[in-house]
């Protein structure tokens, strides 16, 4: 997918490579020598955090550095593509090559062009070549397996024709169905169906006017209990929950500190608020980063400077400081270093806005998200935000927190005043699935799902690492990015996997830094071991075919295989 509009550069600047001399570690983490020795022994590059007891569990997160040769070849690849792009644009200009894209109306040819031709260079010449890997239409539940509608293109992806065939039973590694609640049978569906028959699909009014149903109140009470906060409020769209509520919380004279990899909705919300925005390096909160130069730009440095120097120009102190972070970062598979962020926010009296879009339900022993994962107190997070789209198999978003916060949002949230409230059957789906996770339905199904997901995650990640792929992120994150690097491999990987009946998500620039194109697997509790093994076998095969096993620190399989140098040599060839 090529989802990022041009303005995203502030969000994804290319990161400086790691601070450690050997360049193994990317984001400001220092291994203690003991940990380093242990890691080296295991042929692994992660850092076991040893941070004065802030962490109650090992925090293993790795971002292996891009091999030099691969980086160079990737740039060459983009160079070739760009050259050909110019050549083809030239041919199109002189009508030697047929133009497929839609054109302006004759009557409006003399208007200022609606979008710059240059803007679309990337779309036209790079994205279009591999467009078939995105927007694949499905025609079944987005569960562990999906049915995909077969489509063909006779004009190099400029348009698609549906053949009418359906590719059945494709293993779904793309949907955010973490807990497997995307189902068309079972208690959730039945409950939703009942509510649908009673209430209808829509609401036709806003919360503040006459669209506040008893179901909404029931949902909000349940969400508050689930999160362990005083109160909560639910909204009709996850994206809008961020973009329409951040402006209610901060405004002019306030400072927003935002992780560089935050989702577009957080970025938009921050911009709409009118507050000053400063970006800190991804996940570098800087409490214990002493050796690195990165800490100069870390969250702590920003906080300190903000308070000491106040607002630029007017020199007034900031009214308040809001830190925006996500629980799991959906492109990196990393987990926020929440214990440090909370320590910092307490020390500097800032407020914390935590977006748990991907982590709610997917992390923590009982699925309560990243706060539970670290064994922290939800009280310490001022604004708990999340979505119902992913783990709950529904749609919409929520904000939880203190009663005062929710009261304020009820009166001042843009969503509550101007946007239609959540659809009742969707509300019912959330209520039923949430009760299931909480064990209130009288079964242990929910708990088993959470455990299954955690197991699947560990297993899948470990096996991929054993195969020698470069896998980003935290070992407990169900979002698993597998590095592809080269632009041609984006298309090749997506197509080869679909050929083998596996649906994966591939992403490239501008959703990732230019050379860090990747494939992304989203694990689900609905994946059985058999499904995972099939997927792994095919990934292994495609990995060999496309020479994707770049890792120089291949994880030794548990069967005591000696460290394998061949992968290293292969990539160098």
């Amino acid at each position, binding site marked *: *997918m090529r*989802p990022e*509009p041009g303005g995203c550069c502030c969000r994804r600047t290319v990161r400086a490579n790691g601070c450690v001399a050997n360049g193994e570690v990317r984001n400001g983490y220092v291994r203690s020598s003991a940990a380093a020795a242990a890691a080296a022994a295991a042929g692994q590059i992660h850092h076991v955090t040893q941070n004065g007891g802030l962490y109650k569990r090992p925090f293993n997160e790795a971002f292996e550095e891009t091999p030099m040769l691969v980086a160079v070849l990737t740039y060459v690849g983009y160079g070739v593509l760009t050259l050909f792009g110019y050549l083809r644009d030239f041919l199109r200009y002189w009508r030697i090559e047929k133009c497929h894209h839609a054109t302006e*109306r004759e*009557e409006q040819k*003399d208007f*200022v062009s*609606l979008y710059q031709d240059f803007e679309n260079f990337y779309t036209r010449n790079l*994205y279009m070549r591999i467009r078939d890997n*995105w927007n694949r*239409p*499905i025609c079944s*539940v987005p569960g562990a397996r999906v049915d995909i509608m077969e489509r063909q293109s006779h004009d190099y992806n400029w348009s698609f024709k549906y053949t009418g065939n359906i590719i059945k039973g494709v293993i779904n590694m793309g*949907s*955010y169905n973490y807990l497997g609640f*995307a189902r*068309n049978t079972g208690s*959730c569906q039945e409950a939703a169906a009942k509510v*649908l028959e009673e*209430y*209808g*699909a*829509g609401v036709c*009014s806003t919360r*503040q*006017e*006459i*669209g506040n*149903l*008893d179901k909404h109140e029931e949902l909000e009470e349940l969400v508050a209990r689930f999160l362990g906060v005083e109160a909560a409020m639910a909204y*009709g*769209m*996850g*994206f809008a929950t961020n973009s329409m509520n951040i402006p209610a*919380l901060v405004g002019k004279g306030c400072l927003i500190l935002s992780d560089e990899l935050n*989702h577009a909705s957080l970025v*938009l919300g921050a911009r*709409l608020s009118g507050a000053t925005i400063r970006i800190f390096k991804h996940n570098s909160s800087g409490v214990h980063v002493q050796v690195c130069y990165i800490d100069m730009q870390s969250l702590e440095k920003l906080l300190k400077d903000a308070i*000491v120097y106040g607002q630029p120009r007017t020199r007034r102190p*900031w009214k*308040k*400081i809001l830190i925006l972070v996500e629980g799991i970062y959906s492109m990196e598979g990393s987990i926020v270093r929440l214990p440090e962020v909370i320590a910092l926010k307490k020390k500097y009296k800032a407020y914390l806005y935590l977006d748990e879009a991907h982590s709610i339900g997917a992390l923590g022993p009982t699925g309560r998200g990243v706060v539970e994962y670290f064994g922290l107190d939800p009280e310490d997070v001022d604004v708990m935000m999340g*979505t119902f*789209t992913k783990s709950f198999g529904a*749609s919409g978003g929520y904000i939880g927190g203190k009663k*005062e916060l929710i*009261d*304020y949002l*009820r*009166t*001042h949230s*843009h969503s*509550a*005043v*101007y946007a*239609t409230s959540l*659809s009742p*059957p*969707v509300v019912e789906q959330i209520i039923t699935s949430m009760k299931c996770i909480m064990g209130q339905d009288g079964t242990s199904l929910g708990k088993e799902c959470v455990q299954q997901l955690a197991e699947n995650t560990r297993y899948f990640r470990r096996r991929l690492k054993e195969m020698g792929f470069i896998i980003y992120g935290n070992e407990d994150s169900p979002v698993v990015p597998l590095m592809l690097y080269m632009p041609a491999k984006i298309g090749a990987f997506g197509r080869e996997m679909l050929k083998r009946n596996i*649906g994966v998500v591939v992403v490239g620039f501008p959703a990732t830094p230019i050379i860090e194109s990747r494939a992304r697997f989203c694990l689900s509790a609905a994946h059985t071991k058999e499904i995972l093994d099939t997927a792994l076998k095919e990934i292994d095969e495609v990995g060999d075919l496309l020479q994707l096993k770049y890792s120089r620190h291949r994880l030794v399989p548990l069967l005591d295989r000696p460290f394998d140098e061949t992968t290293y040599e292969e990539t160098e060839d």
Partner: protein
Amino acid sequence: MATATEQWVLVEMVQALYEAPAYHLILEGILILWIIRLLFSKTYKLQERSDLTVKEKEELIEEWQPEPLVPPVPKDHPALNYNIVSGPPSHKTVVNGKECINFASFNFLGLLDNPRVKAAALASLKKYGVGTCGPRGFYGTFDVHLDLEDRLAKFMKTEEAIIYSYGFATIASAIPAYSKRGDIVFVDRAACFAIQKGLQASRSDIKLFKHNDMADLERLLKEQEIEDQKNPRKARVTRRFIVVEGLYMNTGTICPLPELVKLKYKYKARIFLEESLSFGVLGEHGRGVTEHYGINIDDIDLISANMENALASIGGFCCGRSFVIDHQRLSGQGYCFSASLPPLLAAAAIEALNIMEENPVLKEKCGQIHKALQGISGLKVVGESLSPAFHLQLEESTGSREQDVRLLQEIVDQCMNRSIALTQARYLEKEEKCLPPPSIRVVVTVEQTEEELERAASTIKEVAQAVLL
């Protein structure tokens, strides 16, 4: 001549130097050194370096007290305690435990509890479940979405349509997909909040014209034309847009589209039309303002509407020519980054469209209640007689908005007690660009019988008299 004199002076000087006594030279030497010293020495003490010590910084940090995350909300805030609707918010609805006839929901065509719509949604629920678990790009595109887009495009007679999963996000994402920093947007002062947010996100230059005042718009366009002539190079890359609503949510008035189209071609500005209120209501088939005025839909660059009013589902759509609409598939933030619309809601919208195509009638009723509500002492009707949603405002403000709101709320409450569900139009008072005066918004639907309309009108009349006099 000049050089000769100069040379002579120089020679004379050198001579004078030879002839001068030693003490003189020494004195002058000392003087020169003195001057040099004066030039290079600092005559004043530099202020002490302003760097703060670590301790001072710590003190500052200790000292800083942020404002609370949110200010406390007064317990009697008019918007704090919501009405609770038990059961479906359809024609007859239970508000705060009392059964009322609904004159507040935008359920214009009564499709909310239509059995066919429900059946279609149910069938979809049984096939696809509820959520889509992904954005459109990543396995979140369902065949139902494609069908709905197709159906909408066909219905509106445009080349392409694109659906969003949230009505508010539709126009708010569509505007910044095209209009960027430096572009100019001419927008009606009465434009709804979603448009305002879209404009803010676009960071374009915004020019407000008086509500429905084409002369004022033309004045602004002319001003811009003159500006453009001064700087033709910039003008060549500055896009111009006119953003208007079909029926205005905030005023219930209709936009003068024929004049707007004339202005569009005269000044080469593109028109974006928001039709959330007029879609499904205006025009013979419910295609909105374009059909109402008989204007070729291709003359409007982009039409957006939500599916949350007439269609009684959730979400919104934009339609127009492929050249325009397709751009949003990569640039519409609310499209790319959000999970797609739950298939059951898309299926409901498709069925609602089918029903809408079969029997569209609403207009007479709007006119009827409009007439019936005229002449209430103390209240005036604001809005077109063909608009299904219009406003009742106080004829004379009490002078304070708070007091006005309280009076109107009293009317709403008393009507509610007499089984007529009404609501005030809610606004975020500090956020609105041009805050409309407080009002009660009355919504007419096809389900209300003549008798009910009459009853509502007489109830409002009686209550208003009791409250206002």
